[in-house]
């Protein structure tokens, strides 16, 4: 059994079919199909299944590349990264990295793939309860510096070399997909009421949110921020950021260090 299954699996996933006489030793003909034609049904379905699965997770990448190039990229990818999970949901985990390795000049495509991977991860993350809109304001003044905001699990922060979110939006709007000019951008991807949301950020806000997401207290985050930007964030900036992030539902708890 093991030998037959190993042979058949390899025959299905390999780029080229096995010799017809090899197939005929193991598989019977039907009244209409030769053994290798019967095996080809499984080979064809495997290729279609892999492509469909990755197109579900990476629809904008597929649109930017076009059918022909996406088809070839998928088949090269699954040769290098065959599924080892019981679920197809994990098939595309290494897809963006594969693009970076095999298409190093397609940085916009790589950014777009990272964005779409983050969206699928956020879609499936565990739900987290949210802090109240006034919870931060209720923290005593003497505890604010040692306050740690715990992010929801369904949050990913991404920095890009290209405007990946704009590109993704063009896909959503069914507009022509073209590789954009290089321009650094920052994005928070999160889930609210079971919907995946994309929140564009400017560089200073991204830096602060990334520090908090990494587990820094507000005091430590401000100190680190100041070292990167030649000064701490303005108070009105901080106020606006936390108001927006809390309203967006990015935090699940407030912890006070030392309590």
């Amino acid at each position, binding site marked *: 059994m093991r030998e037959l299954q190993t042979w058949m699996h390899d025959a299905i996933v390999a780029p080229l079919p096995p010799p017809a006489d090899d197939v005929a030793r193991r598989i019977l003909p039907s009244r209409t199909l030769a053994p290798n034609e019967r095996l080809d*049904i499984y080979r064809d379905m495997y290729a279609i299944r892999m492509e469909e699965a990755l197109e579900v997770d990476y629809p904008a990448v597929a649109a930017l590349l076009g059918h022909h190039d996406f088809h070839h990229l998928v088949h090269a990818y699954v040769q290098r990264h065959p*599924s080892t999970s019981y679920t197809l949901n994990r098939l595309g985990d290494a897809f963006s990295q594969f693009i970076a390795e095999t298409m190093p000049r397609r940085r916009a495509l790589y950014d777009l793939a990272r964005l779409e991977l983050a969206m699928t991860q956020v879609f499936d993350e565990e*739900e987290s309860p949210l802090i109240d809109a006034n919870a931060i304001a209720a923290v005593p003044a003497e505890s604010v510096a040692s306050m740690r905001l715990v992010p929801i699990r369904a949050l990913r922060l991404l920095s890009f070399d290209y405007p990946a979110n704009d590109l993704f939006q063009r896909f959503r709007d069914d507009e022509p997909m073209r590789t954009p000019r290089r321009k650094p951008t920052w994005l928070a991807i999160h889930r609210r009421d*079971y919907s995946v949301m994309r929140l564009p950020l400017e560089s200073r806000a991204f830096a602060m949110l990334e520090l908090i997401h990494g587990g820094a207290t507000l005091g430590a985050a401000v100190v680190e921020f100041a070292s990167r930007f030649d000064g701490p964030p303005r108070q009105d900036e901080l106020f606006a950021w936390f108001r927006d992030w809390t309203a967006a539902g990015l935090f699940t708890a407030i912890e006070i260090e030392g309590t």
Partner: protein
Amino acid sequence: MNRFGYPDLGIGLGLRTTHYSNILGNRPPVGWFEALSENYLDTGGRPAFVLDKIAEQYPVVLHGVSMSIGGTDPLDFDYLRKLKALAKRVNARWISDHLCWTGVAGRNAHDLLPLPYDEPTLRHCIERVRIISDFLEQPLVIENPSSYVEFAQTTMSEWEFIARLANEADCGLLLDVNNIYVSAFNHSFDANEYIDAMPEDRIVQIHLAGHTNHGTHIIDTHTGHVIDEVWSLYADACRRFGDVSTMVEWDADIPEFDVVFAEALKAAAYRSDVREVACA
């Protein structure tokens, strides 16, 4: 009634993402829903939320594609643990999977791959079904496959293999009438002989579906309406097995909910007609 006491839930439908809003919003009079296990095992997002809501309102059955009952890799107990927990959470009435293998050496083709029907393969499947049923603490329900190849080493018919598997592993059967039709066409056997050979007291569920006929072979695509010949086989199955929980699968080019629901109502009518004739 099957020997396991699994209830007749009437006519059900496959739970599909595109129909979530319709089902939650309109609460259609469907007898039960069959959820694809793998879609709900590793998510804390909307699919899990919707399944929990639906399980509050309808009986739910879990139908999987990843047990690899005929596989030669070790059973995946991480998968089975998650499946068992999900079944408990949604009060699944039973758990089913396919007579097939899905991959080898840790690699998964994500297909329901066919087995040779011979004595060593039968013994192998019996042992694995018993282990799985013991682990899940309930009799597993096995679905007959659709297939496109026959192996030279096969020594018995598919229906003999399945009947013996069910009896010797003490499991239930999910009789996919469309799969019987598809395989009968592809392998030139008599679909009625297949149905007649099934052990009546082990039939827990019936599947119906559309398929794609390429002339030289049929692919089990689960798309389009159930064809007349499959309805006819379904009527035969109803006559032979009585009222069995029946479910319509529609997985590709999925239409509006009402179209799929109409197919379920057609199944209900067939079932009812057979019952009335039997009682007359």
